[in-house]
């Protein structure tokens, strides 16, 4: 049970959140401009490193915010997304 810090609600149990996948790559602005290979790569090959990763979480049973957190997959250490810092 992770403890995730919501910027609006503070530290809350993971059970209030819904996992939304890796946040490292944004959806391409214009998918139609991508080659088939690049689109498939974006869609099906998310990296899964051991170490810090960016993740989307939805505070579904809280304020409803989609937040981005930086979680270390080795230690579970969670920091706010540095882009916002």
């Amino acid at each position, binding site marked *: 049970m992770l403890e995730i810090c919501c910027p609006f609600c503070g530290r809350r149990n993971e059970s209030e959140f819904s996992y939304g996948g890796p946040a490292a790559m944004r959806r391409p602005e214009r998918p*139609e401009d991508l080659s088939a290979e690049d689109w498939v790569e974006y869609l099906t090959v998310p990296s899964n490193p051991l170490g810090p990763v960016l993740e989307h979480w939805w505070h*579904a049973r809280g304020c409803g915010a989609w937040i981005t957190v930086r979680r270390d997959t080795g230690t579970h250490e969670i920091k706010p997304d540095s882009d916002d810092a």
Partner: protein
Amino acid sequence: MMPNSYRLKDGGRIDRSKPLRFQFNGREYRGCQGDTLASALLANGIHLTARSFKYHRPRGIISAGCEEPGTFVELLGPDSSGNRAATMVPLADGLKAKSVNCWPSPEFDLGGINQFLAGLLPAGFYYKTFMWPSWRLYEPLIRRAAGLAEAPAGEFDGREFETRHAHADVLVVGAGPAGLSAALHAARAGARVMLVDENAEAGGSLLDGRERIDGAAPGEWVRSAIDELAGMNNVRRLGNSTAWGIREHNLALILERGGEKPGAMLRNWRVRAARIVVATGAIERTLVFANNDRPGVMLASAALAYVNRFAVALGRKAVVFTNNDSAYASAGCLKNAGIDVRAIVDCRRNVPEAAKLRADGVRILRGCVVSEAHGRKRVSGVTVRSRSTGEDCESIECDLLLHSGGWNPAVHLFSQSRGDLRFDDALAAYVPVASSHPVACAGAAGGRMTLAGSLADGARVGIEAAVAAGFPRIPAALPCASEDSYSIEALWNVEPRGAGRKCFVDILNDVTDGDIRLALREGYRNVEQVKRYTTGGMGLDQGKTGNINILGIIAAAQGLALSELGTTTFRSPYAPVEFGAIGGTRSGPVFLPYRHTPVTAWNIARGAVIYEAGARWRRPGYFPIGAETLDEAVERECKAVRNGVGVYDGSPLGKFELNGRDASKLLELAYANSIESLKPGRGRYGIMLSDDGLILDDGVVFRLSKSRYLATTSTANADLVHRHLEFIRQVERPEWDVKITEVTSQWCNATICGPQAREIVEGLGTDIDLDPESFPFMTWRQGRVAEFSSRVFRVSFTGELSFEINVAPRDFAALWDRIMDVGAPYGIAPVGSESNHVLRTEKGFLSLGHEVDGTVDPYDLGMGWIMSGNKLDSIGRRSVELRRQGGAPRRELVGLLPLDPNMAIPEGSPLTPEGRKTRTEGFVSACVKSVVKERWIALGLLERGRARIGQTAHARVKGAIIPAKVVAPCFYDPEGSKLRS
């Protein structure tokens, strides 16, 4: 044997004035308040208390704590629970317990025959011996033979499970010397402290030993510490509470057993702690020698506990076998209790003088080992071997053999917090190094094996924990305690003389040193593999007394140092936990509440058969009248809709309002088809894809005004769509001006459908012009229906003329009553979800979870027109295009008419070429008895189905092949003139 004949005359922490009666395997015994089941049995001289898991060897009580590998019992009656270690069951008056693994009793166990078949049951025997013709043939028998206790049956009378959440600055696990010291210091610094201990009484090892603190018995110091903690309002102390797991971010899971009776109340605490102090002490290891599992062979630490805490003399004549100093105190303690301690057998050549002093003059055989224990149902003697000559040198008669293989710091919780361990050669044990979480070990759990060291270490760790949690640093205040020496020489096993003598490394699972070597010979190198192959270290006790011996044997066999070998993972739970306690009150509708609409009571009164229909909504399935069957009721309801009028409650439908300048853009991105071109007041069917080009949901979108939309979703997918739309808004397009509001429960709707629907709405009284010219299909109007403010939508899921009347929930029940009144002369039928399924199948409309199963795109469903707009981007579009370019055959939506019109095809049946047993080419997604066709009809997804219209497909069901003609997927009013009427 006289009752309680092994109870010592005085001493101990039991209350002799409160005798308790209990039953064990059907016989009556007596114990005292303060006993455990184990201590009470031992006080009655009962050492043969169990039969082992695999070989059904006689077994006894081995320890005094949660590490017990020997005796598990099943509690009967109101306390019923399975597989409880006898050492951890507090004795209560009227307690009934029985041994597991034996029938009819441990004395006369029929399964004992397995001892003579032992040669057939080596490690991994079930993978090897019982494979032909199929493991499944043998599995039930083997499981029955190997089973532990039976699961409690029936209701738990008066038993309560609950979950509590709590927070702490410092959570201290273990109320022994280190834990008490840590809790005292952290609490004095002002931290919110939670102190939990698995025993009812605080003190830990201090309850068992005879050290002195500040010149007094240790109980004095414990009492003063508890008094001080009780006087502080920043401290919460839980007894009978086992911390059984540490999860991410310092969430500790603690099982509290409360109440007078052992099974009466189980409370699972979930404590989020800024700092956790693991002061769980150390657990004594067994020594591995021939027949080390005989009843009467016990851990040396258990003797301290039974003599000092429970006032039980474990035998008359004892031998102590050790490789370290701590067992000398046990020998001395037994001698003081009047037991004849015949010898201490120490594998070391040199024994520290301080240790010898503690043994109080008992004869010491240095450089010797016990090579074998004798006796079957009770140890009767030992053979001693000299290590220098390798020869047996002495036989000693005894009825009690204590052994100590050294001490393992109880690092389980620390390890679960992702703490690293290191093998310490001086202690011959794994000790904690560092955790990635704010968890620290104190005292023996951290490798401090002396009382003074533990007290000081507890103070240090407690102070540091408080400082780290933001409290001031206070000086340590330590009592004066002895600094007993501790030294050890690793001894992983004593080679037995001759075959057929078993040396157990895992007593619970009947794993021997030979099994470990066999696993290594068969190619299992890694400790985790050996564990899985032999089951050594698994099960109820999780190998607390034996695991490190297994590692030692593996390391020795492979010529490795233990530091190179690593350990198996310490997994939670640390001690067995009841499922009921984990669930707490969260079961059934409490775990996931049902959703209801305002007419639930009406539905029940009307006799509806109600069940869950997606997303926890309780909906009426059908409304039988009198003795109607399901089929009869559904047919009547469907005919009412097709020929007259029906009404159903569509309230659970997902509903979202999107508002803002960019609402159109968001919908344009979310839906595969164009939404922006929709005129205010009009609606359009839309399909939402995920970016892998598969259908996520479908529904109708209405444009309420220029910048305001109402999007409806399927009932089951409403939450998923909400998440999806919010993701687009907040993550993909945060710059857009649009707000999304879920209004599912703000609008209830009654959908009146059938050729006479318009008459009903007129009869209700409305200011909306219902003429089809001014209020056509796929438009909506705001107005009053009956006296209620309403939004009326013209959509249709049944294929009939329909008015979806949306009102506020407070008005809904009244609206419903009015509809039934006005509709009565027309024979209006309330319609359940079963009939809806029939009606939509006749029309070929999609249903989530049937045709839309997460593998299809709009083309597959014959709705390629959805994708035909000249939109640049919408979610999923790119993937659909790529898939179409690939040209691989797809499963396409078709209608199916069983050649025998009275033959139903079970929904979900596979379609295969000619019905052969081969790869499927599709499946039947829906099959209903059509009221318009008066025969069974079906929908299905069939490979290249559209090109096969007119041909025959075959459903393969159990024992039959059902041929069906492939037709277009619409059986009723394909032009749509009815629903537009």
